[in-house]
């Protein structure tokens, strides 16, 4: 580690080093994965790689990264390709799964699929691995049709993932299928490698009239450094319903850049719920694109952080067709010297008449050292629309605290109850009861209280 301290040329140089390391690794990586010459992967990866090579990691000079600096997490000697395959006993990681309900599981350890911890299927639908889907000819048509079609070509960090995309969850649910149980996608990092960079890639296709629930989690099981740069593409077919939950409660040594792109066909309903309680730096790029009328998009988030943690929620809803709606609700609770960023962009294109787009972002700063940067961005080109946004930043209400304390509820518990009340409407959006009570318990733990009941 000492050479880093002696290096007086500064952080940029080291950042460059990670970039350089990625550049030198790319060729070897390409050779190792190019098994199927029929596909255009070589092209996709090369193009994406060129884009990353040109633009590098985003810096605070980029408008979209103004409040979030990656410097501190890039300044590391990450291992990009862990060599050893690690086995973990289920009992060691049981607590990270939602065990109260039956579910499909797609589990990775240091980026490598763990068949032992997983429960996948090919029966009536595919809930399996992207690596398998990329290689096998029978998936070629689907992959060609969907893969990398909605992931951003402008965000260099997404391009970086595309360039190195190899493994992740592949979920293809055919039309008229209601999935009988949710899918859990879990990425563990073990820290066998002292510093590791992971780049998972997920592809989710929900066919016409299908109904899918997914819970995604990135979890390191010790305190070694990990940087995850994840990309997920979600395709929601006609009248399909997709509920997606992201549980971000990782160690303080783990950072996550999550890029999620959702494309919806007519009359579909897609909801992405993001719960950010842990981690060092968490950036969520979440983008919704409409490809039909009568679509509903729901974006919900609860962030509760402290220390010097940072959570940045960057959302985009692109209304392109008439008669669609989007509902966005983000709640943030920031303690100590933590930083929150909320950037909510809504574009209503000229053709998208009768759009209903609602955005709400409420924040509570617990301590003087905490910061929130909130920026609603509404770009409306249609004239017959209902759009609203509301952003609040506040503190806990002293009168409310006094009310509860006067009923015998101690200060700490009273504080916690008020914060629960504050986050409640976003919590209420969780459709899986067992998950709701799990998240409730996580919040209680985060707030340091035992409430004695499930909210």
């Amino acid at each position, binding site marked *: 580690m000492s050479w880093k301290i002696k290096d007086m040329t500064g952080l940029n140089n080291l950042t460059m080093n990670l970039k350089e390391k990625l550049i030198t690794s790319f060729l070897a990586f390409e050779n190792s994965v190019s098994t199927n010459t029929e596909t255009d992967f070589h092209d996709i990866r090369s193009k994406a790689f060129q884009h990353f090579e040109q633009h590098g990691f985003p810096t605070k000079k980029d408008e979209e990264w103004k409040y979030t600096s990656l410097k501190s997490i890039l300044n590391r000697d990450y291992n990009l390709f862990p060599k050893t395959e690690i086995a973990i006993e289920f009992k060691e990681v049981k607590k990270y799964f939602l065990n109260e309900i039956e579910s499909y599981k797609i589990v990775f350890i240091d980026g490598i699929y763990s068949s032992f911890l997983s429960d996948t299927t090919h029966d009536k639908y595919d809930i399996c691995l992207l690596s398998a889907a990329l290689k096998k000819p029978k998936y070629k048509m689907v992959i060609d049709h969907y893969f990398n079609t909605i992931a951003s070509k402008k965000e260099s960090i997404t391009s970086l993932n595309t360039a190195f995309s190899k493994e992740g969850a592949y979920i293809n649910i055919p039309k008229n299928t209601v999935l009988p149980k949710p899918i859990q996608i879990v990425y563990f990092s073990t820290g066998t490698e002292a510093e590791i960079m992971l780049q998972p890639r997920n592809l989710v296709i929900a066919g016409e009239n299908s109904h899918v629930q997914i819970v995604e989690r990135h979890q390191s099981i010790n305190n070694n450094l990990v940087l995850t740069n994840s990309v997920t593409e979600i395709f929601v077919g006609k009248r399909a319903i997709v509920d997606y939950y992201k549980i971000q409660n990782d160690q303080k040594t783990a950072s996550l850049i999550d890029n999620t792109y959702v494309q919806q066909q007519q009359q579909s309903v897609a909801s992405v719920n993001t719960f950010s309680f842990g981690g060092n730096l968490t950036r969520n790029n979440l983008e919704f694109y409409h490809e039909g009328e009568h679509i509903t998009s729901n974006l919900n988030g609860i962030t509760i952080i402290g220390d010097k943690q940072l959570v940045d929620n960057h959302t985009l809803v692109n209304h392109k067709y008439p008669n669609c709606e989007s509902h966005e609700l983000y709640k943030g609770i920031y303690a100590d010297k933590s930083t929150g960023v909320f950037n909510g962009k809504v574009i209503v294109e000229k053709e998208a008449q009768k759009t209903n787009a609602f955005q709400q972002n409420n924040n509570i700063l617990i301590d003087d050292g905490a910061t929130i940067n909130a920026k609603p961005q509404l770009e409306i080109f249609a004239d017959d629309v209902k759009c609203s946004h509301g952003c609040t930043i506040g503190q806990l209400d002293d009168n409310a605290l006094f009310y509860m304390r006067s009923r015998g*509820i101690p200060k700490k518990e009273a504080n916690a109850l008020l914060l629960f009340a504050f986050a409640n409407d976003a919590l209420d959006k969780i459709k899986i009861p067992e998950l709701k009570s799990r998240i409730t318990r996580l919040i209680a733990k985060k707030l340091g209280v035992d409430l004695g009941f499930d*909210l």
Partner: protein
Amino acid sequence: MLEIKNLHAKVEDKDILRGINLSVNAGEVHAIMGPNGSGKSTLSAVIAGKEEYEVSDGEIVFNNEDLDDLAPEDRAHKGIFMSFQYPIEIPGVSVTNFIKTAINETRKANGKDELPAKDMLKKIRETAELLEIDRKFLSRSLNEGFSGGEKKRNEIFQMAMLEPKLAILDETDSGLDIDALKIVANGVNKLKSEDNAVIIITHYQRLLDYIVPDFVHVLHNGKIVKSGGKELAHELEDKGYDWLK
């Protein structure tokens, strides 16, 4: 039970209470009346321990213990209850869960085990019946979307559940129609005993038709300017407050 001696209190350097003396014994009902701005609500908030108010002189002794420096929750655990004029809303926390937490925290502070769920439910059911509260009401989020009357009734429900030694009802009659007023008064009367005491803070005499006080005190400009029996309330109703200033 409660001894208030020469109590002075201020908020943000503004003197509000200027030497209050009041003695309340178990089994008594006291009414504190007075015009707006006389310090009525401040007095109740100071007894309940609101931290924004600074006691600059005098003392409040409750069951032989000086309350000075005790947090609001500690006072609650010792048996002081204050019904709020404007109860706050807590979305996502049901009336039942809130009261369960309040009762169990109080029991914990007094070295008792949590009340078994079965007993808790029984008590909730009985109290709800006493106050003519619909069971559905109990699963609603605390005070969220409640009408003024529902909020006040919910305050009395909490009081009945917590069984305080001293209950302070701050403007409980405001916002209540006559039927709700009767139900609330009926509830208070049923809970009244030789072991507890009630202080009713009110602007008007009408609640006192239903909860008959043993003593009536008139507060003006931060001081008690007159004390008397229940007939004083009627006198105030007829003559107003001006003759006392």
